[in-house]
């Protein structure tokens, strides 16, 4: 199909949440792995490039096609099986890549699955579900994200402070390779011998290769380029590979047991420094007033002064935000924590100590919101989610004046001891360039989303330049240029600040082992070889 004609009919499939628009000539919506294989084989023979899509909620434009063919996996949306390891009390689900996070959560909350195509073992496993409530811990804000997308960009979310990222909960993958052959990998099955790996496909083909030499940053959250480590589990190479090595056709995820007690506390501090000190106390890096805080939050989140101001303005002027919780003008910066436990009393004992710490840090324990029931917890979640929503709404309205302007949000993380440096860098950069920006996000993992809200094209360009400068500085701090959104196509220039040309070439070499013609998600993570001059 001609590109223009395609855009008319399938326009929505040329975009994702990054607000970038691409082009393509054809699209398929496979309902099974066999249908993926047949489509891939056809394209392989014709040497046509393929872009894989899930729910298109990604922020780095991985799913935006650059010519060629689209394989959209939204119709592969079944949970296909379950497994219970009784000895270890571990529970696993097998899902197709198009299952949405919101759908998965609904299945788990109701403990109800569509099982008529399941084998007996899977149906039996479900019976064990009755004994406890299980949940999937990866929690990106966007719940309409697909499981394939979550695996492809190694997504995480607020609770990653306690539970880690998607990688930590993926125990099996089926991957359709560029030539239509299939790799089935279970965690623990293929371990690299130092930097030499060897995999066997379903057709019996042996794929051997050498791992790159580059070192990944020492940060808690990272999805910047291919996972690489001597002696690594080879399943980790495919998680976070942004669809550049193969097409994920099935994922086995491990679930976690829900703890009965779930609290949230929003703490308003008088300035940014005391908020950061509070975070450090919560991470047990510093001890305040000899208070032995044992609290282990599952999430530690941050709202900058400007983020709170933005919420306050929207609350007063925009009816969509009039229901978010009111707060005093004197509240400067906020930290939000979530706590999971089996006992309310245990949590309360720690919260009492937390109150004393807040007071000692020149805060006031009365300037807090405590939520220990579902209704109030939802209010705190709404408050947290209002931040990105406010930003998106503002960007959408600015876009009406100039449609070249897109969202400018960072996704960088730094090592623990560089948190203060990174915050200083962000604040100075914003101030020096006289930009309007809000900072919020996963401060527990030193992973803040800085969102610049450009008022015009000039500010947009300034913001983009600033991001490149930050990427370089973050890399120098030993940080990661992408912590949870993936590199996609948008952050290709950022990755170059983190790895040198040779190291990027090593990634390209690795891709070619699995996709010699480079037809899969070309231009994602790094440029296509012939494009790069």
């Amino acid at each position: 199909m001609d590109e223009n004609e395609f855009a008319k009919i399938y326009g929505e499939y040329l975009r994702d949440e990054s607000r970038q628009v691409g082009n393509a000539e054809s699209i398929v919506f496979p309902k099974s792995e066999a249908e993926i294989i047949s489509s891939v084989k056809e394209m392989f023979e014709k040497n046509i490039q393929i872009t894989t899509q899930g729910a298109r909620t990604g922020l780095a434009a991985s799913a935006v096609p650059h010519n060629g063919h689209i394989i959209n996996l939204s119709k592969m949306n079944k949970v296909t099986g379950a497994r219970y390891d009784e000895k270890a009390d571990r529970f696993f689900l097998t899902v197709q890549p198009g299952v949405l996070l919101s759908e998965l959560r609904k299945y788990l909350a109701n403990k109800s699955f569509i099982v008529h195509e399941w084998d007996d073992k899977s149906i039996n496993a479900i019976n064990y579900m009755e004994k406890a409530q299980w949940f999937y811990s990866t929690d990106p804000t966007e719940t309409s994200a697909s499981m394939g997308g979550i695996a492809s960009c190694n997504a995480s979310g607020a609770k990653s402070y306690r539970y880690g990222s998607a990688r930590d909960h993926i125990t099996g993958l089926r991957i359709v390779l560029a030539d239509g052959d299939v790799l089935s990998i279970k965690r623990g099955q293929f371990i690299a011998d130092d930097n030499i790996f060897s995999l066997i496909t379903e057709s019996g083909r042996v794929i051997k290769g050498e791992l790159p030499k580059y070192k990944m940053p020492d940060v808690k959250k990272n999805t910047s380029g291919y996972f690489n480590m001597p002696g690594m589990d080879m399943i980790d190479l495919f998680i976070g590979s942004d669809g550049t090595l193969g097409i994920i056709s099935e994922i086995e995820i491990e679930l976690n047991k829900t703890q009965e007690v779930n609290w949230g506390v929003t703490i308003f501090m008088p300035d940014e420094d005391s908020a950061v000190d509070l975070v450090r106390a919560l991470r047990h890096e510093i001890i305040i007033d000899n208070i032995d805080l044992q609290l282990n939050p599952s999430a530690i989140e941050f709202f900058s002064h400007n983020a709170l101001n933005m919420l306050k303005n929207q609350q007063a002027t925009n009816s969509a935000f009039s229901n978010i919780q009111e707060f005093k003008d004197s509240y400067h910066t906020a930290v939000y924590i979530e706590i999971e436990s089996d006992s309310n009393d245990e949590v309360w004992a720690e919260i009492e100590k937390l109150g004393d710490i807040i007071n000692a840090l020149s805060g006031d324990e009365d300037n807090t919101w405590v939520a220990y029931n579902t209704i109030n917890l939802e209010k705190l979640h709404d408050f947290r989610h209002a931040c990105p929503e406010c930003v998106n709404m503002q960007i959408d309205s600015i876009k009406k004046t100039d449609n070249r302007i897109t969202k400018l949000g960072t996704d960088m993380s730094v090592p623990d001891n560089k948190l203060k440096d990174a915050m200083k860098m962000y604040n100075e950069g914003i101030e020096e360039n006289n930009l309007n920006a809000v900072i919020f996000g996963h401060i527990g993992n030193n992973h803040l989303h800085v969102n610049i809200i450009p008022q015009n094209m000039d500010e947009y360009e300034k913001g983009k330049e600033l991001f490149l400068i930050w990427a370089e500085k973050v890399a120098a701090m030993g940080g990661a240029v992408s912590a949870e959104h993936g590199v996609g196509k948008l952050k290709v220039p950022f990755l170059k600040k983190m790895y040198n040309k040779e190291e990027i070439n090593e990634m390209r070499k690795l891709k070619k082992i699995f996709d010699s013609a480079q037809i899969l998600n070309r231009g994602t993570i790094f440029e296509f070889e012939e494009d790069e001059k």
Partner: protein
Amino acid sequence: MKIIICIKQVPGTNEVKMDPITNTIIRENVEAIINPFDLYAIEEAVRIKEKTGSFVYGLSMGIPDATEMLREAISLRVDKGILMTDRKFAGADTLATSYALSKGIEKIGEYDLIICGKQATDGDTAQVGPSLANTLGIAYATDISKILEIKHNKMSCLKITDDGYEEISVLLPALITVVKEINMPRLPSIKSMKTAKKAEIEIVTFEEINADENRAGLKGSPTQVRKTFVPVHNVNNEMIEGTSEEKAQKLSEILLNLRTDVN
């Protein structure tokens, strides 16, 4: 000023499950919460207190576990919690509840204002507020969305109606019931929770209020619930799939068919 808030504990869910045999609400594994409308009553009282230096009582009739709910009310800045709990109060309808609460209020003594939520989310009758005012013989106004002024022994406020607002003046002591438009309830803080954890909740038994047994509990309740059930919703969802154009085509066909059905 002395302000009394009447508070009820209700199940914290919209999906009430009924026991098909006993026709009663299944309360196991359902979080118990403060009736959401009562939160607006609490917040309004606390706002008056912060302006005028009033004292706020939280009064409830319920099972002994409701002490925790009153503690929660204290964490929302209510000054004192009083729980009327006794087997003789059990099974009360709105009339017997109003009677019992009026006796509890008599025990508190003098007061200026009683604030109730517009209704409870489990019974939805909206009767207890007005009925309580009648039993006490004081003025009342329902569905209040704003308190305009409290001066001397007079209070003026806005009542929300189907057509707009009515400005109402009442002589104190009076009772008002409030709607959710009136304010945004605050959340507990660590400090207010510390206060609440230490607070003493006063327990009031049937004997202490010198009540008439024939007017309280099941005995004093002319209302008999013959049957309760959860309404069945027969909604069939159909997902329309395809490209935008295909979806629009299918949707228009469905809508056109609906019109034929009506004809």
